[in-house]
């Protein structure tokens, strides 16, 4: 009997799959006659509106780098609220109002082989539904992800994707038309700092700064500032404290010098370098280091840098402390002692900011900037690399 029943059940069941491709099962039909129906509806979650303490964590998932991931975290609640599935060494960007999320991505039709495709995926910022895949016909720069290899203009109009294949250029995608518009040539330069709807600056291998302005037809006019750092001996890190809306940037060099610049006009104004380090700090061997090692609190122009003790060429060593500086005066305001050394950091852009740090464990450890106290720790992923906050 049991056997007969189960055979029928299996047959019925298997028949179900083919037919049930659109309808939900109404399990209430299966209740006995005396059962009470509860009617709980199954649903799909939607994110609440973006807020300053939401953190987007980009993970290349080493060593399975064909399967990148984005983890969306409510940093005030230490809660995972969503993920995005990506491809090979994805880059990520947020619309200025966080209404859209973008993955700059590369796939092969057979995982690690077959036909390669490069495109930007548009996600709705709250449903996380995919709205479009916009081709990048020139491909993408394939590198362990760094923020300034892909970005969006401060008005949200253009997505910019750095490329090196082999010439160096920036692919431009119009977010309103959802269309690739062309490439901007930036020979010998890298990193994208967009500071207007039609302007970006980029750091060149000889230490100069190239500013490129484009028109609707992607015709460019360029301006080059002479070397503003020593590209041989003390290069600026790839990650900088950057406020694209104000056109303000603070670069930090391997040896701990800060170079601030005002990129809000067509011709940048680049300040004189100043050091993060006092004579005493230098004697103790302090040095900036990590991956995404510097960020800024835009409303107050405060700079946050991961610091460790080590010799030259330890520029990727995780930080044991975060040092806080006034970006206007260069004065050190605080030293936050990290519970666990960190490779990357980000900060919320609200009045009572939280500091988010990515550890090697890996985990995300959050601190309250006001008192340097830990707010919480969350573990996810294998190799998260980059942190993005709403409006940063």
């Amino acid at each position, binding site marked *: 009997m049991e056997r007969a029943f189960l055979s029928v059940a299996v047959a*019925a069941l298997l028949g179900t799959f083919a037919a*049930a491709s659109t309808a939900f099962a*109404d399990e209430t*039909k*299966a209740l006995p006659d005396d059962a009470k129906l509860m009617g709980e509806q199954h649903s*799909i979650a939607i994110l609440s509106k973006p807020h300053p303490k939401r953190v987007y964590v980009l993970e290349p998932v080493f060593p399975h780098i064909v399967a990148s991931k984005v983890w969306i975290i409510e940093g005030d609640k230490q809660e995972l609220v*969503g993920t995005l599935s990506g491809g090979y060494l994805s880059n990520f960007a947020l619309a200025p109002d966080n209404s859209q999320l973008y993955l700059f991505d590369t796939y092969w039709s057979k995982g690690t082989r077959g036909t390669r495709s490069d495109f930007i995926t548009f996600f709705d910022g709250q449903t996380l539904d995919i709205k479009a895949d916009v081709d990048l016909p020139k491909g993408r720069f394939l590198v362990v992800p760094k923020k300034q290899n892909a970005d969006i203009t401060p008005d949200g109009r253009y997505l910019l994707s750095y490329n090196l294949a082999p010439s160096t250029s920036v692919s431009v995608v119009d977010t309103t038309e959802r269309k690739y518009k062309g490439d901007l040539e930036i020979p010998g330069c890298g990193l994208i700092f967009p500071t207007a709807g039609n302007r970006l600056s980029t750091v060149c291998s000889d230490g100069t700064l190239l500013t490129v302005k484009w028109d609707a037809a992607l015709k460019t006019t360029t301006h080059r500032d002479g070397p503003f750092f020593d590209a041989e001996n003390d290069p600026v890190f790839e990650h900088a404290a950057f406020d694209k809306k104000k056109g303000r940037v603070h670069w930090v060099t391997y040896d701990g010098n800060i170079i601030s610049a005002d990129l809000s006009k067509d011709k940048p104004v680049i300040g004189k370098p100043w050091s993060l380090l006092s004579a005493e700090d230098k004697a103790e061997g302090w040095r900036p280091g990590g991956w995404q090692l510097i960020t800024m609190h835009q409303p107050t122009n405060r700079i946050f840098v991961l610091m460790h003790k080590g010799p030259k060429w330890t520029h990727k060593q995780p930080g044991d402390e975060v040092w806080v500086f006034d970006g206007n005066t260069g004065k050190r305001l605080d030293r936050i002692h990290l519970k666990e050394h960190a490779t990357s950091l980000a900060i919320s852009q609200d009045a009572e900011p939280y500091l988010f740090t990515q550890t090697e464990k890996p985990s995300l450890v959050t601190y309250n900037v006001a008192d340097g106290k830990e707010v919480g720790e969350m573990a996810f992923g294998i190799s998260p690399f980059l942190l993005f906050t709403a409006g940063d």
Partner: protein
Amino acid sequence: MVMQVIDKLFERMSRRTAQKMSRRNFVATLGAALAGASMLPVLPVARKAQAAEDPGVEWAKRVGAQTTDPKACNYWRYCSSDGYLCSCCGGGPATCPPGSTPSPTSWVGSCLNPDDGKMYLIAYRDCCGKDSCAQCNCLGTAGEMPTYRPQLNNDIIWCFGGSSMVYHCSSAAIVGQV
């Protein structure tokens, strides 16, 4: 429409079979089938609580089932769930994480709510279409059977009939009280 026919069929089968089998045997069989089974398709089957014999009750006692933390493996609804909990991934016990889609096929379990001591019918629907959510891996094997009895096996990717066969996480909605 098809689903309703299938449901009727199951309902009819359940009743008929329940009459022909000893009740205890029936409940044990189906209970075993449903408890610990995960990623299974729609198997809507009527069950009554049979305290001592019921794997759902047994599970609730063994794990110390609770009703307050849906991110823990011992949350009461998960008596028959296997896999990553949608509650830990941006969803909830009856909610898929943003951007994932519930499989149109589900399986059904019967779990004890420790607060009211009553049994509830739970519909387990996988959320599909994204890479594994990778959080809160809760794996049970009570009642789990080999794949040649697919409706009782928890290793199968049960995203049949949905937009994608890529498994993301497991959810659990209350359907009724039994």
